[in-house]
Structure formats: C-alpha cells, structure tokens
C-alpha cells in the first residue's frame, strides 16, 4: 500500500514537472506587441491601418522582417535582397526605369515605392493589383525568374543554416521551423511599419509650417476641378495618403503593350489600368509611371496637361483627353510641381529604423 502510495505521488510529481517544463517552453514565446507610430495627420483624417488578425505586428516579427528585407540570402545567388530594388533612400523604390534581377535580366515595370501600405484597404498590391495581400506579395519576388530567381526550398535552407535565423523565428513566431509563410509574414510586418506622414505639407495641415505662395498656388491647381483636378485620384488634404489605391487608365497610350489590371482580371475593360501611386516623396522616386517612362516631374505634369492619349478604357476623369489634357500654363506647372515637392518626407527617408 505504502509503495503504491509513494509511486502514485512520484508519478504526479513527474507529471507536474513535465507540465511545468511545457509552460516554461511556451513562455519563451512572448512576443512584444509593436507600437505603430501613426502620424498625427493620419490619426485625424484616416481609418486605423489594416493589420491582419493572423499576422499582428510584434517587435520580434518586425525585427525579423527587417533583417529578411535586407538579406540577399533570399535570392538564388545571394546577390539581391528586397532592398536592392526597394531602397530606403529612394522611398523604397529604385532610380532606374526597370530593375535587373540576379541574372541581369530586366523586368518590364518600374519598382513601386513602399510606404503607407497598411492603408491600402483594397489589399491589392503591385501596379496591376495581382498580389492580394502583403503576405502573398512577399512570396512572389523570390520565385520570379527575372527577380530573385530562387525557390523557397533553397531560400529556407539558407535561412536554416544561418545561426541567427532559427532563434529569430522562434522569438517572432514561437517556432524554429522556418517556412515561406513565416518569411512572408515577417517581411509584411516590416513593410507595414514603413509609414510616411511628416512632410512640410503635413506640418502645414497641422499648423506647424507655412507654405510658399507657389506651393499654395500649386495646391489650389491640384484641387481645382477646372485646372489640375488631381484630387479625384490622388487624395487631398483630407486624404493624406495622396492616392486612392484604385486602378485607372491615365491616358498614357492609345495602344497597350502592357495590359496592367486587364491581364490580371481578363476583362478587356481593365486593359491599361494601373494602381494610382502615392505622390509622397516624388523627389526620390523618379522615374515615374508603371513603366518609368518619365524621368522628371515636368514630364509627368506635361503628360496630364497636353500629352493624354485616347483609348477605349481611358478613365472619364481624364476628362480633357480629347484636347490632350487640362492645358496648364507654364506658371501653373511650376506651382504644381512646387506643391508636389512639399509632400517630401525627409524623416521617412532618413529613419534609421528603416535602414539596414
């Protein structure tokens, strides 16, 4: 009886001790929620950012995502990282019309700047909207034969062999088993913290800065239905994203060599439509348009002023297309450019948290 009694208690102790070990092991995965720095003007004007419930922002997840974003191991020959084509100093795009991949082959679209992505409520990314969600987007460049030209088996193996990554994944996601889904989740977390909302114009809206007369005139042209009428697609003082994140044919071509959204949906009515890019940080993001055809802001403004091309899917908002455009004077063009440059956010460009 005594032996049975002792054995019973001994077994209980073993179970408790095992159980305690499990608890300790679980307690090691205690990620710290990441506190997103939302600019004051966004807090006033915009809905809260979209953070998926299955990928909440954590300090550990963001740190891992940042390391991965700058890590060339994700490419087939260890020569390119996400940051190769999405450079912090260029508002997370690059300075060339098209970007070349690891084999020296060039793509056919301009690298999109990465900022304020958590406010893209349509959740369609890339110029043509083919990527549904940031996590899915992050999976694609690794596989793309003209970008990082790798496969996830190789990429994951390289991360597994790195002494740091298993620990970082464990801290971020509670597992040392690395896979493409977790890599994409971590990168998406880092991308969601790339928030730009501290330009001179933002400070003007907050009452902390004064705009020049030229900048004010440019803003008036931007908002004037009979002048620039830019606000219907590119936001306003009340929508400081400076994009509607929608898809438009903005009259670049009469015939399309790149179908854009149309190639994704298969609907010919979507041919020639591309996602509206933000107007923030334009000084760093040349060349412009989905194919980087314009090297300067002057060329962009000239396009809307007198360079529009008619096509079946041109947006009705390109309302003066039959006249070539909205016909701005030289002075109006200079003012409009001055306003656009007031949307430059140097703090974003120089933020050490966004640098390698």
């Amino acid at each position: 009886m005594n032996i049975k009694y002792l054995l019973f208690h001994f077994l209980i102790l073993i179970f408790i001790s095992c159980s305690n070990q499990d608890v300790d092991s679980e307690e090691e995965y205690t990620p710290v929620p990441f506190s997103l720095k939302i600019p004051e003007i966004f807090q006033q004007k915009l809905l809260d950012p979209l953070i998926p419930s299955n990928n909440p922002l954590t300090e550990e997840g963001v740190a891992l995502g940042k390391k991965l974003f700058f890590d060339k191991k994700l490419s087939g020959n260890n020569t390119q990282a996400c940051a190769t084509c999405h450079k912090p100093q260029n508002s997370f795009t690059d300075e060339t019309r098209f970007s070349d991949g690891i084999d020296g082959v060039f793509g056919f679209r301009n690298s999109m700047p990465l900022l304020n992505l958590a406010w893209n409520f349509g959740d369609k990314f890339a110029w043509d909207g083919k990527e549904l969600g940031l996590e899915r987007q992050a999976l694609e460049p690794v596989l793309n034969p003209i970008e990082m030209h790798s496969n996830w088996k190789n990429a994951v193996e390289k991360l597994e062999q790195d002494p740091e990554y298993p620990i970082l994944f464990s801290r971020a996601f509670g597992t040392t088993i690395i896979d493409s889904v977790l890599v994409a989740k971590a990168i998406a977390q880092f991308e969601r913290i790339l928030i730009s909302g501290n330009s001179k114009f933002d400070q003007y809206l907050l009452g902390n800065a004064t705009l020049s007369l030229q900048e004010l005139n440019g803003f008036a042209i931007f908002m004037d239905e009979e002048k620039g009428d830019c606000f219907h697609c590119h936001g306003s003082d009340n929508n400081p994203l400076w994009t509607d994140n929608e898809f438009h044919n903005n009259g670049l071509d009469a015939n399309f060599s790149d179908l854009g959204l149309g190639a994704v949906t298969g609907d010919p009515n979507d041919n020639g439509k591309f996602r509206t890019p933000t107007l923030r940080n334009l000084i760093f993001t040349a060349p412009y348009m989905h194919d980087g055809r314009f090297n300067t802001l002057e060329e962009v403004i000239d396009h809307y002023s007198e360079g529009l091309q008619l096509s079946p899917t041109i947006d009705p908002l390109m309302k003066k297309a039959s006249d070539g455009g909205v016909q701005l004077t030289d002075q109006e063009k200079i003012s409009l450019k001055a306003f656009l440059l007031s949307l430059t956010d140097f703090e974003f460009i120089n933020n050490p948290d966004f640098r390698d």
Partner: protein
Amino acid sequence: MKKKIILIIGLFFVLSSCSEDKDISLAPVAITLNFSHSWNGTEITSADFDQLKFTNENGQTLSIEKLRYLISEVSMTHESGVKTILDNYKLVDLENNESMSFQTSEAVLPGDYNSITFRFGFKEEDNIDGAYQDLNTANFNVPEPLGGGYHFMQFDGKYMNVSSIEAPFLYHVISAIDPTNVNDAIDTSFTINIGSATVGSNTNINIQMDVSEWFKNPNTWDLNEYDINLMGNYDVQLLMNQNGTSVFDLVSITQ
C-alpha cells in the same frame, strides 16, 4: 414525490416558455437595408459597367464606369410618432457588394411604422469638411473652394457626344455653392420617404435607385451640355437636385 417532481418540471417549462415569448415581443431588432439599382426598371450591377449599353431620356447612349453615393439619417417613425435614427450615414458603392446591404446600427421595436426615410447626401450641418475618417479614406471629399465636405454622388461614365465621339461625363452631386455668395451653400441633399413598414423579427427593406431618373425627371439631361466640371456649376447642381428626388423607390419589405 414523483408528482411533485413532475409538477416542478412542468412549472419550469411553463415559466421558461412564457419568458421566451416576452423576449421575442419586446426585443429591439436591427433592420437590413438592401440597395439595388436599375436602368428604367432593368436591374444593373457593376457587371454592366464600362459598356455603352444605356440610353438616356435625351436619346444619348452612355456607359457607367463608377457609381457611388452617400445616404444619411436612415430613420423610421413609429405610429406613436417616435422617430428612431437607425444609421448616421453609409457610402453605397456599386463595386463593393458589402456596401449595398447592411444592418442598421440602431435597432427598433417590432411594430408598425408610418415612414422609413433617409437623406441623399448630408444636410449642411453634417457635411463637415474632413470629419469622417472612412469617407476621407474612400477619397470622397469635396475641395474646400467648392464648399468642402463630401460628394453626395460620384457617377462617372462615357457617352456618345454630338460628334458621335465617346466623351466622358462626371455627374458629381455636391452641396451647391452660389458663386455670387460663396459663404452660403445651398443644401442640395434631400430626404426620401419610401413609405410605411411593419417591422418583425427579421425585416429586410429593399430599396432601388433607378439610375436613368438622374437624366429624366423633371429635367431632360443633355450630356452635350452638362458632362464635366459640374461640381462648381451652381445651376447644374440645382438641376441634379431636382432630378434626384425621384430616383429611389421601395421595392419590397420582406420578413
């Protein structure tokens, strides 16, 4: 003893059944509002967009490329005279199915209601520039020089113009600003009373906008004359306001 147990169980069922009846009859219920759209009675959806398939009262062929509008002050007035605001505002967008069917945020008691009303657009005191984060994020604002606040409707498309060339139209309804008196906006929002209703436990109110009415009644719309740059055109905004009052109808109420 057995009889007592049976009696207790019986009483329990009687009481609990009474209690349930009471809950059903007194609990406020949310209403579901469903917005559909037609062209002269033929239902249209976003699948009909981007095609020159409609003909307006003036005989002009046109397409719809974007159609979204704002309603506010969704309310019901009980036969006792008590008015309940069910929702402050909603943006209905034909390219977003979720926006066309919604449950009201406030509930009402079941019973008979003399009127269901809502406002097209915002009344002046609600049309506060930049005040609504969801509408800002949806890029539905009106520039301050045009009075600020929000669009009441953005209706974009193309039509065959007098030269038989495809031309754009931007039928944008806003609060009208008289250029001779810019500080005094005319409230071009309007209230629609779609009739009475009996509210049960699961009431769906089905409302339809006949889009063709925007070009028809009382002003036959000539797109050659009024196609673009209409936001800042005071007189045209008043014409839109007149045509808008007949666009909505109650289709049905289902329980």
